[in-house]
């Protein structure tokens, strides 16, 4: 491969925009074997790889890429799984451009290595070829661990601990495990079959997955200890939706992003009445917010037949919190971006359904605590938007149930659980926490990173506890 070739990334095919806005199939189609080989060959195999430092779970990236280059796909997937139990998920939804790929040396002279696409390739290859279940490595004393929440953080902890020989029981309040991977991220970005395959893998490793168990209601944390668990990991996520507190917010047709995505992803509302859960998606949909969740809700709306879909965001384009790739996908698909715009009021018809949204134009002022220029309303710039569905996607905070029902668990004023950055230990002995319930709404990979650390400390805690050292 010559110098010029090495500078250029291997493109990944996407489903044509004309087709994809009418279906829920995956947008990004993944690499073929040839494409993966070509991309893997670009890797410089740096002796001091900076990409690894950019990865929250420190995957040995050069090593897994080298295995692809040499055609050892199963070995490549195995290498990934040493660090990451959900490579097929991370290969699709990680913000690689701000993490591993941002650090890639090739990025200085051209395109960085497409690490996410290669990760996806290896994981997909292995899933299609048949996943081998590793032997348990029983090291030292083993214990019984409860995992609360089956999202990315919980799944990581469960996989890491069961491989070390512990007995692991995972509690999930919904009827499917997977957390946000199941109910939140739409099929066209993360197919549910892939999430299910990862859950099946965790079950095959021996994790007992109990769905329909809302911890804090059926059992408290202290009751789990009384029931013989040695340690507990809380990975209950950030599922409580934020609202704006403006007039008309309780009208019909005003959804939280959670409700909207749960009705679509988890309950298959778009197949109503074959499936029993209804959802009504109007002609003109406004999604309030600019993150990945907002992009997901907007793109779902389009696929479910909306004529016009707007992203209404109070800051500017370059301040969108969404991944650039997802914002681009949304733009390509015809989502209209109403930037520097903020809703102030919703209006409804006589049946109580939303039929309009009053907005105000914003301009950027001085930087705020987050370092971003703060949006300021332009007085008198109010205008009406004709909408019949509104999705509020302005973030989530942790569900307070476990915090409210557990004595001795320190929390912050934002409702997150206080846990040590390195050990994931909380203020309560034997209780560890990680993922969005600690960080506030963040990414899948950061939740997994926290899960890894938690699993390591839980293992050490159990060793100490059982051997009395």
């Amino acid at each position, binding site marked *: 491969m010559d110098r010029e070739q090495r500078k250029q990334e291997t493109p990944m095919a996407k489903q044509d925009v004309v087709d994809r806005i009418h279906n829920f199939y995956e947008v990004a189609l993944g690499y073929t074997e040839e494409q993966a080989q070509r991309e893997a060959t670009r890797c410089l195999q740096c002796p001091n790889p900076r990409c690894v430092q950019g990865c929250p779970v420190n995957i040995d990236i050069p090593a897994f890429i080298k295995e692809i280059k040499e055609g050892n796909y199963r070995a490549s997937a195995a290498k990934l799984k040493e660090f990451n139990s959900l490579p097929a998920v991370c290969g699709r939804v990680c913000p690689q451009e701000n993490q591993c790929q941002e650090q890639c040396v090739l990025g200085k002279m051209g395109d960085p290595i497409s690490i996410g696409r290669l990760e996806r390739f290896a994981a997909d290859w292995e899933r299609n070829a048949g996943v081998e279940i590793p032997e348990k490595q029983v090291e030292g004393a083993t214990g019984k661990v409860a995992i609360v929440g089956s999202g990315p953080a919980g799944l990581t902890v469960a996989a890491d601990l069961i491989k070390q020989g512990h007995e692991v029981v995972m509690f999930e*309040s*919904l*009827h499917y495990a997977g957390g946000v991977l199941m*109910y939140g991220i739409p099929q066209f970005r993360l197919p549910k079959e892939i999430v299910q395959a990862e859950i099946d893998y965790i079950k095959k490793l021996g994790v007992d997955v109990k*769905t*329909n*168990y*809302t911890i804090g*209601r*059926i*059992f408290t944390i202290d009751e789990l200890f009384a029931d013989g668990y040695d340690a507990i990991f809380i990975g209950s996520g950030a*599922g*409580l*939706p934020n*609202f704006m*507190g403006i007039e008309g*917010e*309780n*009208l*019909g*047709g005003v*959804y*939280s992003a*959670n*409700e909207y995505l*749960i*009705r679509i992803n988890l*309950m*298959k509302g778009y197949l*109503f*009445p*074959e*499936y*029993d*859960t*209804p959802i*009504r998606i109007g002609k003109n949909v406004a999604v309030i917010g600019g993150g990945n969740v907002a992009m997901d809700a907007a793109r779902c709306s389009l696929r479910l037949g909306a004529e016009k879909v707007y992203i209404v965001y109070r800051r500017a384009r370059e301040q969108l919190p969404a991944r650039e790739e997802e914002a681009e996908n949304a733009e390509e698909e015809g989502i209209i971006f109403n930037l520097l715009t903020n809703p102030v009021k919703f209006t409804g018809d006589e*049946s*109580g*359904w939303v039929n309009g949204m009053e907005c105000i134009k914003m301009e950027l002022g001085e930087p705020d605590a987050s370092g971003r220029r703060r949006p300021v309303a332009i007085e008198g710039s109010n205008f009406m938007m004709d909408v019949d569905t509104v999705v509020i996607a302005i973030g989530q905070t942790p*569900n*307070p*149930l476990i915090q409210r029902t557990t004595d001795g668990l320190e929390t912050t004023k934002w409702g997150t659980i206080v846990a040590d950055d390195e050990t994931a230990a909380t203020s309560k002995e034997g209780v560890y926490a990680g993922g969005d319930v600690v960080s506030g709404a963040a990414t899948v990979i950061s939740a997994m990173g926290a899960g890894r650390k938690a699993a390591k400390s839980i293992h050490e805690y159990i060793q100490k506890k059982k051997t009395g050292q």
Partner: protein
Amino acid sequence: MFKIVSKEEIAPNIHLIEIAAPDMAPKSHPGQFVIIRIDDKGERVPLTIAGVDLQKGTVSTAFHAVGKTTKEFAKYKAGESIMDFSGPLGNPAEVENFGKVLLVGAGVWCAPLHYTATALKKNNNKLVVVCAGRTKNDMVYENQLKAVADEFHVATDDGSKGNQGLDFIADILKAQKFDHAIVMGPVSTLKKVVEMTKPYNLKTMVTLASLMVDGTGMCGACRVTVGGEMKFACMDGPEFNGLDVDFDELISRQRVYLPEERMASMIYEKLGGSVKRG
């Protein structure tokens, strides 16, 4: 899968079911609810708990077969299983020694009301109970409520038994002093009774069966304005002081999916009322 231990049609289209849920039973209290999902295509339906049997490890609930999902559920027999049975959810009802308590139940809600009434009786309250139904044939839990009541009234919409309508409750409130009131029924009933207790500033706890999807605080579909603040019925309730509840907003929110529900029910009936699904 969760096994149906017993099932009984206690009034036309009103079914009492008892489900094996050994982990849930000891944790369940009056006022809490469960979410059922009968099969893989089913909706998540919240139902208030009507009782538990700790020996058998079962939880009971009652439902009115009015929509597609509940009509389908009505066909299930004892011995069969449903896919999901999640709970207990929501906060337990306030149960203590209040003194004299007015209890009003309407239709299917008389079953969970009886569960609360029994707990109140154990706390030595004096209970004045109103058991309401559409007609004399639609009465639910009449005998059971009568058995725990110190004073018992029956009301029907058509006057075929007892009082006609609920207006007579105004007279009861005028004649007696209450320390606490509990109403369980359709939102229109809750609103009506609260309008009568409001002049006495009588704390009137109402159980809000708002629209819900997950029932654990995630979707926000069950949001309701209580005392000017947004509350989630699943997390903050389902029991609230009715004096503070914005019932008109709640009624409006309850109705938003009526067209879809009617359509689903119509298609279901056209298909001969059966969509047994794998």
